[in-house]
């Protein structure tokens, strides 16, 4: 067994690039303070008010006897802070600060001289509070290092469970819902959640990503021998990313954050689109073997004025690589000026996956720098990584997107493909205490049943309350520590609590689209998960292949354990139960071989042609669990 990578025993407060950015920010603030103090010391009453607003935003209004404007300044500064993060309005805080200077100069009024020392005290308290929160958090985390390293060196976590599951009724409902959602015409989005497209729970690009990521393990684990239905569904999910309504948000962000009018969503920044969808492209190809997006122009964006931005799988990934290479920090921005560790990990996954599929070396050209950035710039003493960093100021804080604004592993593959040693350390740290906690929950499982319900919580877009994400976490956590009985029981309990009995365009679970897709991703990622798929790449299936017409028939299971027979699950598709016989089409059979399709009251002889193909007519009027077996 290889030793687990330990945490640095003498961690630095910040990496070299972050330190440069922070020092530059400090220098600018110092300059502002000096300028303000000069005005306070040497100016007349109006200049003194303005100077005091430079020393501390809005303090000049206090000097001018307008406390209401001081309060207004801070309300606007808070709004500017949110918009800085939300739409990359980097100018917001300087603008409000500047307006408070100008306003204090012009507003006139009685002079409250006590405001002068108060302004300086407020400035000192603000700076002191920021430094103290940074230093206190750093020292608190640093103090844990010896204990955490001892744990990392000695902990022996159970292996994750990776069962080969039989799809159940809810799996079938979810698959059917995903197909109907994906296979509607490309310009239709019935059933997707629409709202603002910048951040959070109504962003359609993420819904498309998550659905694509979820269907990839279904294709690999459940229906590797029947890709005819899932391949177009996954393909459409990628094509829908090129719909103008999905990506036009970028022009606004680029304009606000970069002062650039180029609407091209791939060429600069925007890794939350290029990296995420790049990863989706790889998984589509690795799961289905389709190279449709390798064709030039297969991913073409058409802007409002008719301008087109043509990409394909290769040129897309080249653009991601160029962004990595020209980034000073080593991670490049999602929204302009904000580099997220999560997005840059998924961007790395995208390059890695492309290399595995196409024999290129895109990842190799950035891997070392990516790792250096992760370990030197984003790593905190206790093994957490900062979620976000401003590429202009070097600052990070908890923006409310992830618990504490940090995580031990990130990306959708938890570093398992990009850096297995870091992945193992992160796994151990994130699962510290989890086997014990979940062991107590596992003790509640009786005869495979977990008789409990989880409290519902608001989704991020506050469209509804749901218990599904809670169940998803339990299933994922239980699998991660090998408690498969608990995972299976939790899945059934979650289905029981959250099933709606509804079909597309409604949702089969009481949850929004994004969280449902993430639930499907966790549910279906066994035995092969997307990290393994990204490493593996495309592997053609062995054994008989099968296909059937959608929407008459839904194929839920098609896999061959021995390369000769086929385990098959079919049920009525959305067009309803087929009382009349529908055709199952087989291929890759032994030429002129004899087979028998049996199970659930079905017994049909299947004779393969000299080309190894055959058809079987079957009334799919209910779920059928079948086996195609070789007749000796």
């Amino acid at each position, binding site marked *: 067994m290889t030793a687990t990578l330990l945490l640095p025993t003498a961690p630095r407060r910040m990496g070299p690039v972050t330190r440069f950015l922070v020092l530059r920010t400090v220098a600018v603030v110092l300059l502002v303070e000096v300028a303000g103090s000069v005005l306070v010391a040497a100016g007349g009453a109006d200049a003194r008010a303005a100077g005091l607003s430079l020393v501390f935003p809005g303090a000049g209004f206090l000097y001018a006897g307008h406390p209401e404007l001081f309060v207004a300044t801070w309300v606007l500064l808070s709004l500017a802070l949110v918009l800085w993060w939300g739409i990359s309005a980097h100018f917001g805080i300087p603008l409000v600060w500047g307006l408070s200077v100008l306003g204090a100069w012009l507003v006139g009024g009685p002079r409250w001289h006590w405001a002068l020392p108060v302004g300086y005290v407020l400035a000192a308290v603000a700076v002191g509070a920021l430094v103290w929160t940074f230093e206190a958090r750093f020292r608190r985390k640093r103090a844990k290092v010896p204990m955490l390293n001892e744990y990392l060196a000695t902990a022996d976590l159970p292996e994750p469970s990776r069962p080969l599951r039989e799809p159940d009724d809810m799996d079938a409902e979810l698959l059917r819902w995903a197909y109907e959602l994906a296979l509607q015409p490309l310009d239709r989005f019935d059933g997707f959640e629409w709202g603002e497209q910048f951040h959070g*729970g109504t962003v359609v690009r993420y819904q498309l990503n998550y659905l694509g990521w979820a269907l990839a393990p279904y294709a690999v684990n459940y229906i590797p021998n029947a890709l005819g239905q899932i391949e177009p569904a996954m393909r459409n999910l990628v094509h829908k990313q090129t719909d103008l309504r999905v990506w036009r948000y970028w022009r606004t962000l680029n304009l606000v954050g970069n002062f650039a009018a180029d609407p091209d969503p791939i060429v600069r920044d925007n890794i939350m689109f290029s990296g995420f969808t790049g990863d989706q492209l790889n998984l589509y190809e690795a799961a289905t073997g389709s190279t449709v997006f390798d064709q030039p122009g297969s991913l073409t964006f058409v802007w409002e004025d008719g301008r087109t931005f043509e990409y394909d799988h290769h040129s897309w990934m080249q653009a991601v690589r160029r962004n990595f290479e020209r980034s000073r920090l080593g991670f490049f921005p999602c929204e302009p000026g904000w580099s997220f560790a999560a997005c840059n990990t998924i961007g790395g996954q995208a390059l890695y996956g492309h290399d595995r599929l196409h024999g290129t070396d895109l990842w190799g050209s950035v891997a070392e720098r990516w790792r250096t950035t992760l370990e030197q710039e984003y790593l905190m003493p206790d093994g957490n990584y900062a979620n976000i960093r401003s590429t202009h100021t070097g600052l990070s804080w908890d923006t409310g997107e992830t618990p504490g604004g940090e995580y031990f592993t990130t990306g959708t593959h938890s570093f398992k493909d990009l850096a297995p040693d870091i992945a193992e350390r992160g796994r151990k740290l994130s699962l510290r205490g989890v086997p014990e906690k979940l062991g107590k929950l596992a003790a509640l499982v009786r005869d495979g049943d977990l008789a409990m319900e989880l409290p519902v919580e608001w989704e991020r877009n506050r469209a509804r309350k749901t218990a599904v994400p809670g169940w998803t976490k339990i299933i994922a956590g239980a699998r991660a520590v090998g408690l498969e009985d608990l995972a299976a029981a939790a899945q059934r309990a979650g289905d029981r609590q959250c099933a709606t009995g509804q079909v597309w365009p409604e949702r089969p679970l009481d949850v929004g689209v994004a969280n449902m897709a993430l639930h499907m991703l966790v549910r279906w990622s066994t035995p092969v998960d997307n990290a393994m798929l990204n490493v593996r790449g495309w592997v053609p299936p062995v054994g008989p292949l099968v296909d059937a017409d959608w929407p008459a028939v839904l194929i839920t299971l098609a896999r061959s354990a021995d390369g000769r027979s086929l385990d098959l699950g079919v049920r009525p598709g959305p067009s309803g139960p087929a009382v009349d016989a529908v055709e199952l089409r087989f291929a890759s059979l032994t030429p002129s071989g004899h087979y028998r399709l049996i199970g659930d009251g079905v017994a049909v002889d299947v004779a393969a042609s000299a080309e190894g193909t055959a058809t079987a007519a079957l009334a799919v009027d209910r779920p059928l669990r079948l086996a195609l077996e070789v007749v000796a």
Partner: protein
Amino acid sequence: MITLYLNCAKVWTRLVRGVQRVLRRPPVTYQAPPLPVRKGAR
């Protein structure tokens, strides 16, 4: 990492919902907005 006592994600969501309320638009719908009208080709 510094600490700012402001949950940007929560405030953002409330801000968006407030703006949508003013504009009399639902914050979340299950119908895509219409495709933008093409401007003159360049």
